[in-house]
């Protein structure tokens, strides 16, 4: 495999990485319209069905706090796939430039290429670890980026290795050429004198001639003059520009959604909430946050994961208003969206000071507890009941009691009194509602502003 082929493969794998990163960035940026979107999740960039249900690892990863940076400053943050896209674009250009300029044997150029390829490779290792250990999600699009990064790095490193190995060969080839040039046209006798009579070449003479010709054929000439350090430095600056330009363009062109902060209503009658709200975590902080949730709602689980990583988690007294989207107890839904959610909500209420534990269990087991395809709502609810009774046997009596039903009903009536929308999750900070569109990617942006506002008002 020649150095040219290796450099070409670096360009090809970097191009693949660019395409994966482009699809990921594009999916992320599509949310700047404040709507929900299906996202790509395939090992072929841009191919395959869109995940519209939010069940794929790609969705989990994209909605996680690790998918972007500067979230407090830019709505949704700057997707980390964007600098990846810049790095890959640089790698494509750098690898092609090496080929066009005939620098594939230039160790210094290849070292620069390898170092540049190491950036997405090392980042991929870190992100892959986070994906598996923190998010417990396998994102195919991300895996595509990881593989492309690894391929680009290994290929660039291989090219550097071959070029380094090739240099001594080239030197020995040069020596061989010199040696061949000094070979006598006439044979030398045992005393080292040229004899007039022709003779066969010795074995060592033949070896040297063959080696010299082979190396000539392979074109293994001496390495070119390496690039000056100034050129390498210029290349690094250009590389930085490849990353910085799209990132700056994204940050500068990101929409200003601050006008939506606090524009989605307030709790009309927050009084009486103490009777129906479930405390989550410490209740000693000044800013109060109410989350309207359904224990079987995937978006609520997603919100929980996002919120727990936010600084606000340490700054608010948080409580939950249980609002199961289950017709068994909630007359506001015509059919059960999450059968069994009423029973699970009663279990949370019955658990009293251990409510947080029951809620955490419900979120953790949600994929097991949610209604299966072709399953009747009643069967799904019974399955939830069995699971709850098995996991929390001490709550068995309470969850069926009139008192628990009444308490849950009062929670629903709190929603009625405050004319809340029939949806979950909803978040209220000191009575001001976060717009639904801001409960996922825009959470940090809006929450930090609401917290600042609340603290400013005190």
């Amino acid at each position, binding site marked *: 495999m020649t150095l040219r082929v290796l450099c070409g493969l670096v360009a090809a794998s970097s191009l693949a990485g660019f395409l994966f990163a*482009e699809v990921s*960035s*594009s999916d992320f*940026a*599509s*949310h*700047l*319209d*404040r*709507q929900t979107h299906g996202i790509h999740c395939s090992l072929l960039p841009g191919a395959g069905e869109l995940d519209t249900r939010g069940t794929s690892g790609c969705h989990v990863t994209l909605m996680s706090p690790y998918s972007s940076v500067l979230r407090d400053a830019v709505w949704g943050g700057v997707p980390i796939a*964007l600098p990846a*896209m*810049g790095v890959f*674009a*640089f790698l*494509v*250009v750098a690898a*092609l*430039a090496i080929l*066009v*300029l*005939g*620098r594939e044997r230039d160790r210094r150029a290849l070292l620069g290429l390898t170092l540049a390829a190491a950036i997405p490779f090392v980042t991929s290792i870190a992100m892959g670890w986070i994906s598996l250990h923190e998010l417990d999600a396998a994102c195919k699009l991300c895996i595509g980026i990881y593989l492309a990064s690894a391929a680009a790095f290994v290929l660039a490193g291989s090219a550097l290795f071959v070029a380094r190995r090739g240099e001594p060969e080239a030197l020995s080839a040069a020596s061989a050429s010199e040696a061949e040039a000094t070979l006598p046209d006439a044979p030398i006798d045992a005393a080292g004198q040229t004899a007039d009579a022709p003779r066969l070449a010795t074995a060592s003479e033949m070896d040297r001639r063959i080696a010299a010709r082979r190396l000539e054929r392979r074109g293994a000439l001496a390495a*070119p*003059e390496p*690039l*000056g350090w*100034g*050129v390498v430095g210029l290349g690094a600056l*250009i590389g930085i*520009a*490849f990353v910085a*330009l*799209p990132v700056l*363009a*994204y940050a500068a*062109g*990101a*929409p200003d959604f601050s006008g939506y902060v606090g524009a989605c209503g307030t709790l009309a009658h927050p009084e*009486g909430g103490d*009777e129906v709200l479930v405390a989550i975590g410490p209740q000693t902080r000044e800013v109060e946050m109410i989350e309207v949730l359904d224990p079987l709602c995937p978006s609520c689980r997603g919100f929980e994961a996002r919120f727990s990583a936010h600084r606000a988690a340490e700054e608010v007294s948080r409580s939950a208003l249980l609002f199961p989207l289950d017709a068994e*107890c909630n*007359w*506001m839904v015509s059919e059960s969206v999450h059968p069994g959610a009423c029973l699970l909500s009663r279990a949370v209420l019955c658990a009293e000071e251990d409510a947080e534990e029951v809620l955490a269990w419900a979120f953790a087991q949600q994929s097991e507890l949610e209604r299966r395809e072709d399953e009747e709502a009643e069967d799904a609810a019974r399955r939830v009941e069995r699971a709850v009774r098995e996991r929390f046997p001490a709550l068995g009596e309470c969850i069926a*009691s*009139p*008192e628990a*039903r*009444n308490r849950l*009903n*009062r929670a*629903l*009536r709190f929603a*009625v009194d*405050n*004319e*809340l*929308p*029939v*949806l979950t999750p909803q978040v209220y900070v000191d009575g001001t509602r976060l717009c639904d569109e801001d409960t996922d990617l825009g959470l940090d942006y809006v929450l930090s502003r609401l917290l600042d506002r609340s603290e400013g008002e005190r």
Partner: protein
Amino acid sequence: MIGASPGRLAAVAILALAGLIVPTALVGTWQSRAASRLVEAEAAAEASPEERPAVAAAADEEYCTPALRQILRRVLTSCGLIGGSGRGCQPVEARSVATMDGDDFNALFLPMRERGGILQFDRAESDLDASDVALVDRVFADRGGASYFFVVARASPDGSEARNRELSRDRAEGVMRHLESTFHDPALHDQVGLLWLGEEYAQLDPSFCDWQRSGEAGACAPEDLNRSAFVAWIDCRL
């Protein structure tokens, strides 16, 4: 320094320029498209408010006809649940606000058959026994989206009119006391309407035997039915 022909250098420069421009241009494209979609979505939402999420509200069942609503409003106002401070209506008051005869008054509750129950008391008793408690707890806990809980207590014609009226009132208030001690709901007084009807008011007819009742299943003679308190949630918004 690089040792390449100007043509090759130009080719590399073009490559680099393209590599710089393409990601940046893509960013601009994504953002401008998102902005356009946002404008469209907001215009669409403005144009069709019916597509907004429903707002949480109390239940309002089909049986809540305008006529029923009017009667309920009068009864509830008179009984202090709406705009008043009192609690509990005497039969004369109920009759005057409902302006209907006793059978029509009883018919008012027929649509609530699935939501109501009849607590049957022992003769001359106003205390709730275990089966009464079980039934009232079950009915009350199954509030759903109903706004008002009616307790309509009665007494059979045995004994004096005054004694029966007193007994009827004790039965209604006994139910209320039980609800207060069991459910600890501070809003209870705004939800529960008490009516106590004496023997002079229309008696429940045997068709109410099909309702869920406390006591023995076979005990459904007129005097059994009317030593009772009718309890039901009313799924009407006023």
